Each structure stands twice: as C-alpha cells, then as structure tokens.
C-alpha cells in the first residue's frame, strides 16, 4: 500500500515565488527610491502585465482569441469619466464600478459573439469594440469624438498634493497587477483551473471528459472583461484625458498585448510577465528610432513565432520544467 500525496510547489516555484514577493515589496517602496517619471513608467508596465495576463487567460487558456479587448479598456475608462464628471462619484470608487459595469455588458456581448467560431469570433470581438468606440464618439455629454479631460476638482479629490496623487495611482496600479496575478494563480490551482488547463491543451478531450467547456469560457470572458475595465479606468484616470480613439485603440490595448503574450509565452502564467519586460526593454532602447522601432517589434514577433512558438518562457519551461508559481500537481508516492 502506498500513501498518496500531491504537491504543488517545486524548487523552481519556491525560488520564483520568493523573487516575486521580494520584487513586490521593493516595488511597493518605489515612491521612496524612484523618480517621478520612473513611477509613471512602472505603472504603465504593471498595466501591461495585467492586461496581458488577462488576455492570456482568455486566449491562451480558454482559447478565446479576442482582438477586441480594447472594448473593455475603453468602456471602463468611459464609465469612470462619466461617473466622476456627470454623477459626482469619487474617481477611485468609480474603478470597481467600471469593472462591474463591464462584466454586466460582457454577459449579452458574450451571448452574441459566442455564436461565432474561430476567425469569425476574433473579427466579431473587433467589431464589438468598434461599435463601442462609435457609441463613445456619439456621447455628447463627454464631448463625443473630440474627447474630454477630467476637471481639476475631480483630480484634486484623489489627493490634494500632486505627489500624493501620483503615489496613490502608482500603488493602485501595483495593487491591481498583484491582485490579478494572485487571482489567476488561485484560479489555476482550483478545480476550474484544472478544467481551464485541460481546455487549453485539448478542447475535444476536455469535452469528452465531462468538462462544460462553453460555461467555463463564458465565465472567463466575463471575469476578464471585469478586470480589463478596471485596468482601463485606472490607466485613463492617470492620463486625465480621454478620447474614443485613445480609449478604444486596437494598437495600444490589443496589438501590444498580443505581442507581449506571444513572445513571453501564451498559455503560461509567466509568459505575460516576461513578455512585458522584453517589450518595455525594446521600447525604451529603440523608441528614438521612430518607425524602425515598430519594424523591429514585428521582426522579433515573427522570429519568436517561428523558432519558439510557445514563447520564450515556453522554451525555458519545456526544457527545465520550471514554474514560477506553484501550479502543477505532482504526485508523491511514499511506499510504506
């Protein structure tokens, strides 16, 4: 008779989790050691890690390749601007409300676009995002197509000093990415994570083994809309200015996010983190080159897709069996 035990953690996950925790502590203290411009850059990095992690959950795990997530970034941002400017809601309180509003909108949207398969689904998500953009452009209360800015009173309500405002937004951005990553780890370790990972690997196999694939995809779509909208709300709260073209930008909120996820490693929780680091390294070093920078991004994406189709982390993880977070269920048999 043997004693059955299941262990999630491995040596690599102990090291990985320790590094993540230490980095989080160091980054939480960034207002004491970083310049103002660095804080803004870091907040942007957090937003991209979080956006890409959510897109990865959607496309990498649930197989829902959306190219329309800007719909929820923009929706969240517009809900925040609308609530703060027209209803007098405190902007920080408007962030979670934006999330719930997007989740509510995502329910009928999913019912509509889930009727589409494969490529048609991707195109459908884009169409939805365009419809949202056009609706925003028609909203005269928020100055329609030309966009609007948050009035000084709203901005001051975050915190009275400029420094404290910037710190507050920085910490919320960090908290958002930490909570989203933690939630994804928790999800993947749960029963639903088991189902989601099975769907990632083989949808036919998943259905044939009792997994209600459609229901899980639906839940993931709505949850991802919820998180994406909260991220969008904070991104534009920091920018102070909004317009339909920036809020529903397919380039900023979907193309870069897909690039990040694909080069980092789609279908792995570590992928978006690695991908974001690479994306920002490239951007910071090559930004002066103008259009050539975008060409280089394209070449990098093609090279990774050809030689490391599972992304850079996929290459490492397949080779060494590493995992940063304790996700895998390893069977430990102790012979008695």
């Amino acid at each position, binding site marked *: 008779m*043997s004693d*059955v035990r*299941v262990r999630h953690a491995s040596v690599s996950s102990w090291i990985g989790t320790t590094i993540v925790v230490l980095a989080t502590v160091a980054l939480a203290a960034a207002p004491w050691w970083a310049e103002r411009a660095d804080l803004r850059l870091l907040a942007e990095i957090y937003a991209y890690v979080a956006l890409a992690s959510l897109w990865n959950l959607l496309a990498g795990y649930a197989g829902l390749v959306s190219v329309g997530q800007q719909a929820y970034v923009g929706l969240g941002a517009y809900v925040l601007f609308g609530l703060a400017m027209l209803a007098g809601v405190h902007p920080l309180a408007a962030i979670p409300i934006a999330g719930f509003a997007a989740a509510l909108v995502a329910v009928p949207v999913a019912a509509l676009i889930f009727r589409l398969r494969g490529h048609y689904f991707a195109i459908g998500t884009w169409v939805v995002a365009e419809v949202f953009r056009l609706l925003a452009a028609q909203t005269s209360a928020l100055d329609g197509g030309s966009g609007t800015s948050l009035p000084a009173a709203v901005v001051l309500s975050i915190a009275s000093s400029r420094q404290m405002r910037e710190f507050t937004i920085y910490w919320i951005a960090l908290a958002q990415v930490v909570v989203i990553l933690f939630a994804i780890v928790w999800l993947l370790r749960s*029963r639903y994570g*088991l*189902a989601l*990972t*099975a769907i*990632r*690997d*083989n949808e*036919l*196999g*998943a*259905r*044939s*083994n*009792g*997994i*209600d*694939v459609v229901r899980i995809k639906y839940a993931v779509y709505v949850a991802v809309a919820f998180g994406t909208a909260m991220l969008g709300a904070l991104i534009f709260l920091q920018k102070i200015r909004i317009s339909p073209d920036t809020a529903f930008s397919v380039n900023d909120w979907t193309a870069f996010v897909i690039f990040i996820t694909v080069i980092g490693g789609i*279908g792995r929780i570590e992928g978006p983190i690695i991908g974001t680091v690479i994306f920002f390294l490239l951007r910071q070093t090559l930004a002066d080159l103008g259009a050539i920078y975008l060409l280089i991004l394209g070449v990098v994406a093609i090279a990774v897709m050809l030689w490391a189709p599972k992304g850079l982390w996929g290459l490492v993880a397949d080779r060494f069996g590493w995992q940063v977070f304790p996700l*895998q*269920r*390893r*069977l430990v*048999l102790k012979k008695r």
Partner: protein
Amino acid sequence: MPPILTLEKISKRFGAVVVADNIDLTLLRGEALGIIGPNGAGKTTLFGIVTGTVAPDSGRVMFEGHDVTRMKPEHRCRMGLARSFQIPQPFGGMTVFENLVVAAAFGGGRSEREVYAGCAGLLERCGLADKANRRAASLTLLDRKRLELARALATGPRVLLLDEVAGGLVEHETAALVDLINDVRSTGVSIVWIEHVVHALIAVVDRLVVLHEGALIAEGDPPEVIRRPEVTEIYMGLEELGLEADA
C-alpha cells in the same frame, strides 16, 4: 439482461459518403461487445455519435433509458459514457497524473482531493506509475494509448468505449491489456471495443458485430462471426484475418 445502450436507426453521411446506414445496435448491461470492420467502415464515427461529438442525421441514442441524442458530450460523460480516442487526445501540457485527475474530477463529478488516491491506483494498473509526473506531450505513442484508457477509466464509466487500444502492443502487453479490460468488466462496466487485433478482442467480448460501409453486415458469437463468408470476403480471405489473429 436489460439494454444499457441502444442505437435506433442511426444514419449519418458526410457529403456523399454514408458512414452510418440505418444502424440498430443494442448493448446489454454488463456485456462486452466487439466491433470490427475495414478502415472507413464508420466505426469511429459510431463512437462519436454515441458520445456526442458527432450529430447523427437521423435516429436515436438511448442510454440508461434516456434519449441522449441531443445531449452534449460532457453531460453524456458525466452520466457514465466514457471513450478512449483512436488518435490519443491527451492534455499535453499537463502531467499524466493531472490528466487522470481532470477526468475523475469532472467526468466522475467528484472533488479534486477525493480522486487523488484512485488516480494514483489507476496509473499503477495501467502501467504508467513511473511516468505520473511527466508531461503527457512527452509520452511515446504507446504510453499515450495507455493514458487514453486510464483517463477513460478515471471518469468512472458505466459504458466504456475503446477505440483501437491494442494496436502496436507486443504480445505480453496485449495480454496485460486483455487482463485489464476483463478486470474492468468484472466490476460491472459494459464495454464496446473497436479493434483490429482480433485475437485480443475475441479474448474479451461476448458478441461481435461487423461494420462495412456504414452498415452492420454480421453479428453474433465472435469465433463464428469471423468465419462467415460475408465477413471473410471483406477482409479478403479468412487467412488474412487468421494471420492477424495469430500475430
């Protein structure tokens, strides 16, 4: 014995190709039924129709007294219809053990912790214990087939559909497989087994049906059925079937 699974007048065509032609077939509770037939006869499609991945053009599938014809595959699995795929469909990025946990937790409708011990035992029975923590994608074809069988068993089926699980096995492995399937049978699981390795099949099944171009052309006692002229004809002579049986 009452029937557990019944196909009533099942027809299916893919374009001009008829893969199921008005098929009536009954599986009794506790019975083991073998299906043989040349490639393209419609055997695997029949499994698809039973498990819900292929919708029939007409006819009904009855399981445990319920009409499941329009029911989704995941619901049929949870009701106790499990299948192994001819082309293995593992969850490649997950470990072998995790593959079984998925099947046992979702197909069996139980909590994750409840199934750990059972899955570990199943790995032992199917000869995969030493590969429990390997990624399924890194397995050899043979081990993937073992995993297919183990995963189907993990769902706790009442009817087990096996699609060519013996192909490529050497003699002692085939014998072990036959033992395993007989063992499963003795626990009251009804079995439908599609197999080209006829001698392994005959060592297990009570009844044999022959499928040819989407139609049932013979049915009955296994040793007798494979000697019928209409069966030997489609296999181009009894000798060939006999050869395969002795291989």
